């Protein structure tokens, strides 16, 4: 059995964090404006969009992986850039999984706050843009929950990253794919240890984000 704290493990942890944090940051940047608009504005076709987003919130990771695989495979539309089996494509697969979750949960949080405070903000002289920003700020608890939920999902998922990353040692192996590999090889103690590492990292990141929110907005 390999040592739990060897160089390879740190490499795996680092890649897991790099891929998932990059994915969550990009996904949050994409999702927040969309979630805010969906939460605040009423427009034709909004119901259909919301239904689509709620459906995509439960998109199976392996299906997300398959879609990205087909896009980036040699015969796919983006095959020419040769990103398949690289961390970049793993990030893209995780963005596909995280974005609907953040949009769906953030729009619900924004809508709940907007209903309560938007009228007050307008009567206080807020422009539509200022009002949207203040509502977003007011809904930060729900938004943080949305981001943490999405992070939990992508950090712990295996189907998509396995399919598009290939679990290549020193290249695309992350914590979840390592757990799968160790389990298949019968190294259950190692798999459990990796699982605990994954949980501890998740706990630390959640605590850090929640603490940051508390200190900044106390």
């Amino acid at each position: 059995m390999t040592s739990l704290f060897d160089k390879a493990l740190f490499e795996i942890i680092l890649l897991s964090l790099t891929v998932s944090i990059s994915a969550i940051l990009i996904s949050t940047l994409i999702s927040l404006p969309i979630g805010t608009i969906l939460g605040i504005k009423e427009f034709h076709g909004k119901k259909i969009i919301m239904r689509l987003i709620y459906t995509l919130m439960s998109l199976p990771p392996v299906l997300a992986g398959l879609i990205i695989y087909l896009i980036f495979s040699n015969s796919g539309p983006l095959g020419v850039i040769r990103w398949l089996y690289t961390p970049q494509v793993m990030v893209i697969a995780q963005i596909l999984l995280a974005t609907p979750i953040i949009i769906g949960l953030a729009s619900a949080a924004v809508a709940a706050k907007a209903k309560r405070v938007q009228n007050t903000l307008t009567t206080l002289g807020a422009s539509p843009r200022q009002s949207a920003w203040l509502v977003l700020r007011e809904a930060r608890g729900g938004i943080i929950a949305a981001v943490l939920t999405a992070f939990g999902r992508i950090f712990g998922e295996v189907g998509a990253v396995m399919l598009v990353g290939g679990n290549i040692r020193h290249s695309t192996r992350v914590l979840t794919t390592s757990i799968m590999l160790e389990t298949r090889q019968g190294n259950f103690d190692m798999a459990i240890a990796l699982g605990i590492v994954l949980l501890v990292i998740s706990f630390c990141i959640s605590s850090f984000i929640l603490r940051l929110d508390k200190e900044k907005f106390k």
Partner: protein
Amino acid sequence: MPLFKLENISKIYANNTVLKNIDLTIESGISYAIIGPSGAGKSTLLRLMNLLELPSFGNLYYNDQSVANANESVLLPLRRQMTMVIQNSQMLAGTVEDNMKIGLKLRGLPNSIIQEKIKQALAFVGLKNLVNRKANTLSGGEIQRIALARAITLEPKVLFLDEPTANLDPQNVAMVESLISDIQKQFSTTVIIVTHNLFQAKRIAEEVIFMHQGKIIEKASAKTIFNDPAENLTKQFVHGTMIY
């Protein structure tokens, strides 16, 4: 020159005509009460004058400027000359001070002026000691008084009030009413209050507008409306004999 002039204003929401051919003038520095049964269109009329909504038809003038078809860039600076306190005033997360800062920050005022205005407004409503209190720990009466203080800091030309005491106990009602009268007297603010409480309209307003089914039935001095109204409907309403 009237502060507001409404000419043949109608407001329609999804085939439901809420305001019908409203003609109205509002003069500066006077206190008005809009009374009438539920569904008469009182709050909609208030929202139109606060430029929160635009009429479906007709002309709306504020300070002689036509705003019926104005876009947001025209409306925003005008809307900032007014403010509204509603029945369930909302406080945002943070302290009383944070909440009172919002409107002032939106207007880009420097921090030193913001602090001074907050101090003066809280003293005016008698809640100076609550400046650092979490807004979510305030009582209903305190919230309404803070909402009035928040409104004062903005030095509005027009203060709209939509049932501001509907959920308060008698002691807080008296306190809020007294504050509204003080604001009108001390700052020469035009006060327009929507209320179901006829006694409140009598106590606060110089002029009373009676609405029924989306129309203005009568506009006269409070004395006339309550003692000798010209219209039968008004008479029935103020005497409590109207069936609706």
